[in-house]
């Protein structure tokens, strides 16, 4: 993407006024999308974002600048701005020897999205629209979106690191509106992988559309969700966001260091039920949060965060692990070259257990079964977190019965982790997601087997 000599000179400029650490992050991202709504292919969109972010560290201060100008002059001026922002004092000339490092890619890409004609992408939308509407008269509206991106990055820093990655993602989303006596309800389904157009050899868009349609139609019969605290069973694949919110964010080392995590100072302690083994794994082939290197040049890794209920490690970024002289975990990520990296999750999942999924439901007298969760939010300092249910049912006398209207659930992370009393053997990864933190969004994945939490508060209106 850029000449190594130019990068070396840019790092030199960044360090000229005495910076202790400097980094150049170059990104070239092309994205395209096509949208069908209201029965018509409304719009195709293409975009290109290309630029570099440069940071300079002096003491505990990070200076940052970015530029869309990738000429040597543009990079030099950004490097000087970043150095000035770090208010560095001393002087001197430092040269940086770069060593190219390679990391295995989580998976190969079969059919690069840019090699596929726009007509073929549009055709997927029409097929999805037709399939969703074929699910019945109740389906009144269908929106389908195809999206792909190719993100090439290059990271070089004053420790001599030079590494690159080529990240491809392809996504398909269908959302529907069903209409009935009870008003309107919505259904949603999405698939996304870090692969190219071969996604559609694996998944039929008709299946995605039918699932989205079925969810909306089912909810027309839904009753209001209960209020109060009761057992909750979460189905395979549907509920990884529970762990993302209940403890994932709280295990990010930047929040821990600031005292903004209930998991601070708890390494080596029992923080969860012995049934809980939680992993964050950026190497999972094709999963939405997978990559070869993170946005600081560290190879992705499989990191065990909680082993049999014991907290074994936090997630780390480059500077924090560098400062403590410990191995890097590969969790330094950023939304784009215009952002500073932060500690972020990749693919976060609960390892499967031994229980029969059917037995978990059958042994629940009264509770809620959640087949699909929506997004969530956590206050890492208090541990209180919420997450939405987009497909849920009542459990009565050990049987899954009536569908429930949408709502949030609320719980406290440390409490919920210890309240997990059953983990099934039917592990499955869930939907592609976008995790937001401090204004930056990055792609993440999650997964769970069937599991039960003894007590969660259901945010419904029924008694």
């Amino acid at each position, binding site marked *: 993407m850029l000449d190594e000599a130019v990068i070396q000179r840019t790092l030199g400029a960044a360090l000229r006024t005495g910076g202790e650490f400097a980094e150049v992050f170059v990104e070239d991202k092309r994205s395209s999308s096509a949208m069908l709504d209201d029965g018509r292919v409304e*719009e195709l*969109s*293409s975009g290109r*974002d290309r630029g570099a972010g440069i940071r300079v560290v002096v003491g505990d201060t990070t200076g940052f*600048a970015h530029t869309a100008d990738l000429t040597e002059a543009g990079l030099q001026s950004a490097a000087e701005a970043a150095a000035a922002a770090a208010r560095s004092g001393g002087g001197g000339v430092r040269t940086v020897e770069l060593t190219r490092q390679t990391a295995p890619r989580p998976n190969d890409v079969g059919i690069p999205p840019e090699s596929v004609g726009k007509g073929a992408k549009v055709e997927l939308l029409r097929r999805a629209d037709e399939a969703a509407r074929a699910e019945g008269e109740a389906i009144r509206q269908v929106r389908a979106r195809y999206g792909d991106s190719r993100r090439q990055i290059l990271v070089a820093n004053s420790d001599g690191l030079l590494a690159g990655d080529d990240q491809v993602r392809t996504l398909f989303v269908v959302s529907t*509106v069903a209409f009935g006596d009870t008003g309107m309800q919505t259904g949603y389904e999405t698939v996304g992988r870090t692969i190219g157009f071969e996604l559609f050899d694996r998944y039929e868009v008709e299946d995605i559309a039918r699932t989205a349609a079925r969810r909306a139609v089912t909810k027309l019969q839904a009753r209001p969700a209960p209020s109060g605290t009761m057992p909750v069973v979460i189905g395979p694949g549907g509920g990884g966001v529970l762990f993302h919110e209940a403890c994932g964010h709280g295990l990010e080392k930047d929040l821990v260091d600031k005292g903004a995590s*209930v998991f601070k100072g708890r390494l080596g302690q029992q923080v969860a039920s012995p049934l809980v083994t939680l992993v964050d794994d950026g190497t999972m082939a094709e999963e939405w949060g997978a990559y070869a290197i993170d946005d600081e040049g560290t190879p992705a890794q499989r990191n065990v965060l909680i082993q049999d209920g014991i907290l074994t490690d936090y997630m780390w970024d480059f500077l924090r692990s560098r400062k403590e002289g410990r191995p890097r975990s590969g969790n330094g990520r950023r939304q784009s070259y215009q952002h500073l990296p932060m500690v972020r999750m990749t693919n976060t999942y609960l390892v499967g257990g031994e229980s029969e999924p059917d037995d978990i439901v059958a042994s629940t007298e009264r509770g809620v079964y959640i087949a699909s969760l929506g997004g969530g*939010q956590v206050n890492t300092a208090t541990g*209180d977190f919420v997450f939405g249910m987009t497909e849920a049912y009542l459990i009565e006398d050990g049987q899954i019965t009536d569908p429930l209207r949408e709502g949030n659930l609320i719980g406290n992370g440390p409490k919920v982790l210890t309240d997990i009393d059953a983990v099934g053997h039917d592990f499955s990864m869930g939907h592609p997601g976008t995790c937001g933190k401090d204004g930056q969004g990055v792609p993440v994945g999650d997964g769970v087997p069937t599991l039960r939490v003894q007590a969660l508060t259901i945010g*419904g209106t029924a008694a």
Partner: protein
Amino acid sequence: MTALDLPDVADLVLEGAEGDEQVEAYVARSRDAQIRAYEGEVEQLSVAESLGVGVRVVRDGRQGFAYCGTFDAEAVRDALAEARDNAAFAEPDEWAGLAVDDGVEPPEVDLWRDDLLDVPTERKVAMAVELENAIRAADGRIVGVESADYADTATEVVIATTTGLRRASRYTGCEIVGFSLAGDDDETQTGFGFSVGRTVDDLDIDRAARDAADRATRMLGAVKPPSERLTVVLDPWVSAQLLGIVAGTLSADEVVRGRSLFADRVDETVAAPIVTLVEDPTDGRAWGASPVDDEGLASRRVPLIEAGTLRGFVHSSWTARRMGTASTGSAVRDGFKSTPGASCRAVALAPGELGPEELIGGVDHGVLVQEVSGLHSGVNPVSGDLSTGAQGLRIRGGGLAEPLREFTIASTLQKLLQDVTAVGSDLTWLTMSAAGVSLVIRDVAISGQ
């Protein structure tokens, strides 16, 4: 780098128009600074310029779009070619087309302060550090400051079309935001405080620090409430977020696509008689104020709900053509990377007579909600189902009592609007599309123990 300025980039795009196709250039540039203080030092300081152009092409009733994050002439020409190519794959739409001047003159709205551009970085750094110190000093129970940030922006936009529109707008803005931690070994609670303005002299560090400290310390010892139905008082921060969602359902984009629960309700009663909701981006106090909308038409005042009766929706030129009405100058984009849709950007309730203390004084048994979470996952603007995480304070006998946490509030958007029993006098403009105001709502389901 190229020396092209915003109008030059717009010219470059329009010069490339072919035949009778319509072409629009949306050119934007912002200069932004972000500073985070931590333990008395600068933790992060970022100063940067972001720019780009979004190009729309409408040809034979088909629309295509492309953008590039640069003013480089070759990349801009590529974006135009790509937008044109994209248009060929869209399906024809008899209402497709760019905006055309409707004779409404853009209002004078003063949103730009030259002096913000002259503020030295040192002063901005000092404000972030001062905010952090002020939060720590505000209360002995403050044990930490998670972040103390200063941020500002100076943004300029030029919109030009081959249909004859050419409009420029610009604004400055700055804010300080602090997140506090209060507690001891057994318990941590969090709070936040902020102040927003067009330039640094508008910012009130003491107030932001006091809010951040108060919001955290008053939550200490919070308990989970029992489940019941009762009256809630929403603080302005909370009501602004909910009003933003209500405003979303009043977008003509949602109406024409059959996704608005208010689609067929114009001139019907949709809210309590004390509810009057107006979208007014010509009000310079609003964060979303602007003289023109994002396809170049003049901003204007749009009554949405008057004394509980639905009066209409916000329109872009496309929704207006499709519904046989006039644009309300409400085309909004999420920057140069997206196409415009009809949306509110400066919506507010008509304020009432009473301040928050008086409103709380009138509630015998209720909850003051000071924060909500999970709005994106717990509110479905199509069905109207609403359920969010919440924290706040018990109201007992007209006074504030013990703090409450880890509970949800639930209703539906339809019912919530009907159940409003009082609107406060404390209209508060926030960095959102809606202004906040204290709001009393009866019969809301609380779910806790």
